[in-house]
């Protein structure tokens, strides 16, 4: 385990070095951009706001059910908004737009394929998950199957 980690780390370092040497000529010919104060200020505001909200929310979170479902105190509509926010991510807004722009109808088809999984998951899984009262896939598999073996299966570790 330790040896593989060391190997992996040295491999990454080597990759980084070759990457840096490859990038060197490109770095030389670029010009230094002028300092963009508004962008830096906006970045700081966003990061500060996010950290502030996280701090405020963390102080209200005491148990696992607080963490995953806000203590059961949010309505279905609020939860729907939260999930929509989750899925309308950079992948949806930037990635799929770019995909349709560069690949035309192929990108559009990918977008449909992207979307079709959700209704199927809803119809077949959602109610079972809710009835079990568990929050993550790992929780469910370890509840239904052999807990020890599921725990040893690395991708399932929450």
């Amino acid at each position: 385990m330790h040896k593989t980690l060391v190997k992996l780390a040295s491999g990454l370092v080597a990759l980084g070095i070759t990457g840096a040497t490859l990038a060197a000529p490109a770095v030389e010919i670029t010009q230094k951009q002028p300092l963009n104060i508004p962008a830096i200020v906006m970045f700081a505001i966003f990061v500060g706001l996010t950290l502030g909200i996280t701090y405020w929310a963390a102080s209200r979170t005491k148990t696992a059910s607080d963490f995953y479902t806000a203590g059961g105190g949010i309505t279905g509509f609020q939860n729907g908004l939260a999930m929509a926010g989750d899925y309308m991510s950079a992948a949806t807004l930037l990635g799929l737009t770019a995909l349709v722009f560069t690949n035309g109808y192929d990108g559009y088809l990918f977008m449909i394929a992207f979307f079709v999984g959700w209704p199927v998951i809803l119809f077949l899984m959602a109610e079972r998950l809710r009835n079990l009262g568990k929050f993550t896939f790992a929780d469910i598999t370890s509840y239904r199957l052999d807990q020890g073996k599921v725990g040893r299966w690395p991708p399932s570790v929450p």
Partner: protein
Amino acid sequence: MSSEMYARIRKNPKFKELVSKRERLAWTLTGIVLVLFFGLFLTVAFNPAVLAIRLGGSYVTTGLLIGFFEFIFFWLLTAVYVRRANSEFDAVTTELLRESVKGPK
């Protein structure tokens, strides 16, 4: 929740009815989604000319419209499922639980 209560729930005919009804709805909706989805993709694979027909000389093709229709239609199916789950199935579940907690004595 004790195991006696589970047994009472399992014996209740309403429970069997609920399970079969719910399964039937879920698999019907899943079937509709999968048939439409794979239908579109098989058309793309084997007969793409059908999807490339321009409507009225505009840039809108049948393929675009069908894709858009699938988006809206799956969204409506979700609404159908949510409506039935929230009203019918949840009502039967609460009723079932109330009967099973008391026990038939």
